[in-house]
């Protein structure tokens, strides 16, 4: 056993993560691909899929900041997605914003409003745990949907609202949406990264593993959860705003849609719940694949079957998601390498307990 004198000089043993070089390399490549994507594939069909992918990218990354890190699976984040959409549509007409660049200024506003709404909502739903929490968030989403239907004065009820679209030419129309989307998505990912490596993030992960234990170690679980909840809501608001601007019409049924959260969680799980990049990967793959299946299978209604089956397959083959699967591979590889060293000095109490 090492003696206490040497400790402070010793650096933390590096964790079993894939080495920085490789990770940043991959990151840079991914980034480049995303930036060049719409320039290389300038076909609007593809860039449209790209825009939706970006919207889902920021949404799922935001969702993951709360649900992935704290382990509280929220299936009502469509509330904030919807708030973002309605805020955009309502304010655009209220402030008579002309269709064009100016509309993009509504993004920060929507983010702010979504975050604001998240505070009281969080205070209510974070009182419960596990399935009660899951179902409570779903119920909450239906309440908002009903409000959207019934407060016709503001929301236009079932008539919905419009965001009139800029008169830009089709060939370049998608680009601003794509790049603004990409920009927001990157902000989301960076935020997620900062949180993951912060003390705050560690507290969230502790809550995921054992909330009461975390509490007994001096972590203010309520505030931590609420903060994460609000942060994630902000990005959902941004996604909502982008969506409303891009699609141009807003309806209760589509803005507060239970399927939306299921898609988010599918993406997060496919990519790797609670990892930084996993959900983003999931978003790119699934939102892309899903739209692509529809335009590939044309009118065929086997779509649902293919989608459902594929989805079951993912859940069965990669229960942890893609990213963890990769890092596990790497891990076992490293462990094998280091086993010898560990064995060589395998005496002392730690090991005495280890192999039993």
């Amino acid at each position, binding site marked *: 056993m090492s003696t206490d004198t040497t400790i402070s000089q010793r650096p933390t043993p590096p964790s079993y993560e894939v080495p920085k070089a490789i990770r940043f390399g991959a990151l840079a490549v991914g980034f480049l*691909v995303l930036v060049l*994507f719409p320039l*290389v*594939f300038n*076909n*609007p*069909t*593809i860039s*449209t*899929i*790209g825009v*939706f*992918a970006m919207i889902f990218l920021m949404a799922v990354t935001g969702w993951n900041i709360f649900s992935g890190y704290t382990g509280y699976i929220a299936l009502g984040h469509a509330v904030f997605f919807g708030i973002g959409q309605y805020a955009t549509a309502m304010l655009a007409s209220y402030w008579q914003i002309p269709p064009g660049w100016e509309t993009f200024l509504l993004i920060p506003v929507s983010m702010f409003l979504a975050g604001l709404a998240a505070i009281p909502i969080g205070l209510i739903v974070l009182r419960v745990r596990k399935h009660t929490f899951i179902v409570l968030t779903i119920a909450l989403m239906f309440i908002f949907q*009903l409000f959207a*239907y019934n407060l016709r004065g503001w929301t*236009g*009820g*079932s*008539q*919905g609202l*419009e965001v*009139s*679209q800029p008169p*830009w*030419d*089709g060939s370049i*129309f998608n680009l601003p949406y794509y790049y603004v989307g990409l920009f927001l998505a990157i902000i989301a990912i960076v935020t997620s990264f900062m949180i993951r490596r912060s003390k705050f993030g560690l507290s969230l992960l502790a809550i995921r593993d054992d909330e009461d234990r975390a509490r007994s170690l001096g972590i203010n679980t309520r505030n931590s959860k609420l903060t994460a909840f609000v942060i994630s809501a902000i990005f959902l608001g941004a996604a909502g705003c982008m969506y409303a601007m*891009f*699609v*141009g*019409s807003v*309806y209760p*049924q*589509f803005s507060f849609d239970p399927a939306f959260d299921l898609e988010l969680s599918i993406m997060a799980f496919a990519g790797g719940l609670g990892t930084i990049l996993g959900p983003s990967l999931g978003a*790119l*793959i699934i939102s*892309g*694949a899903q*739209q*692509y*299946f*529809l*335009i*590939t*299978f*044309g*009118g*065929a*209604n086997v*779509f*649902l079957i293919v989608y459902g089956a594929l989805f079951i397959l993912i859940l069965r083959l990669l229960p942890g998601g893609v990213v963890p699967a990769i890092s596990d591979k790497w891990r076992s590889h490293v462990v094998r390498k280091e086993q010898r060293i560990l064995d060589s000095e395998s005496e002392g109490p730690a090991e005495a307990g280890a192999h039993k």
Partner: protein
Amino acid sequence: MHISRFGSVASRHKVQLGAALSAVALAVTGLAVPNANAAPKPITIGISVSLSGDFSGDGKATQQGYKIWATWQNAHGGILGRPVVLKFLSDASSPTQVVTNYQKFITSDKVDFVLGPYSTKLTKPASDIANRYHYVMLEGIGGGPSVFSRGLKNVFDVSASATYQLVTYAKWLAATQKPQPIAYATMDDPFIQPMVDFAKAYLDAKGFTEAVYKVYPAETTDFSPIASAVAASGAKIAILGTMPPDGYAMIQNFIQAKYNPDQLIMASGPDQGADFTKSVGITNTEGIMVPNTWIPTSNYTGNKDMVALYIKTYGGDINSINADVPEAFAAGQVLAQAVNKVGSTSNVKLQAYLHSGAKFMSVQGPVQFAADGQNSGAAPYVFQWQTGQYVPVLPLGGPDKVSPIETLRPAWGTTPGA
């Protein structure tokens, strides 16, 4: 005609199944789409239909209507002497997918024209896309007022717009009946509710009073309270803004509540042919009315052929034809007539021509577009189920002969059950 469903994509979609699993690969194969689908000769038309999700029922009927039209049109020399080829994509009833689909039609498949999807909700985003690429969007099943209130110049609805559909009946009421209380109930829907509200406004002006007025949410599954509210009002006339399937449930609840007004008219549901009679039972349909933009038996251009073709292709009888079928068919007809007149595939010319006030003929009757793109030429009909037959009863003095309106039978109030 089945190119529409899979096209040459089908042959490749094994490869793509794998490819689809990477966003980049998506792009690559996606790029391949145009050259793969490009067919120089025929006139290609892109249509997004809802084959799954909330609108799947009507979505399929819509597709049938379009397919039959294409067959018919090709039998009549196609468009500009070129064969018509339809490309369908499913939008799973989601606006997100509608946006992608029409982008693909226009930018990847480079179709010559597009036609409208099912429902007002999907027509709005669809027409935005079409407008962006200066494509005309002719449609027959997206007539909600909000579609036309946006100042888009490229949307044209060949059917009578929502707002007028119940007015024919309202006019008749005002003319023949003395003012009395009327029971209203309508679904909260951008297409249906305006129909009822517009008729109500008209009747209120004529001194008819409101016995009860209920708006119910689209996702309602238990109609007994609404039905009993209407029943309790004891009104002799009931005007309902229903859609299938709630129209069926509503009738069932009326029967159970032993409520039978003299007149019962429903915004839609009774026009669904076999679906309707199967669901409520043929004996219970007696005397129920529904406004419609199409007469199955009419002699309007191509109608007889359409009915025959439908029965030949999909079976059933003349009453089993869903109202979406002629609405889609008509959209196709107007497109063909206009394009043939313009003499080119230019959407810009087409749009100008459609705005010129020119008249067209469709299976639903005359079509003429107002400035906002609604069909001002249409005179909505009212139909009534009489002894198991679906017969026109209004308007009086129209081109088609109509039977007299009968009061609602069987008397649900006295004989329990059907």
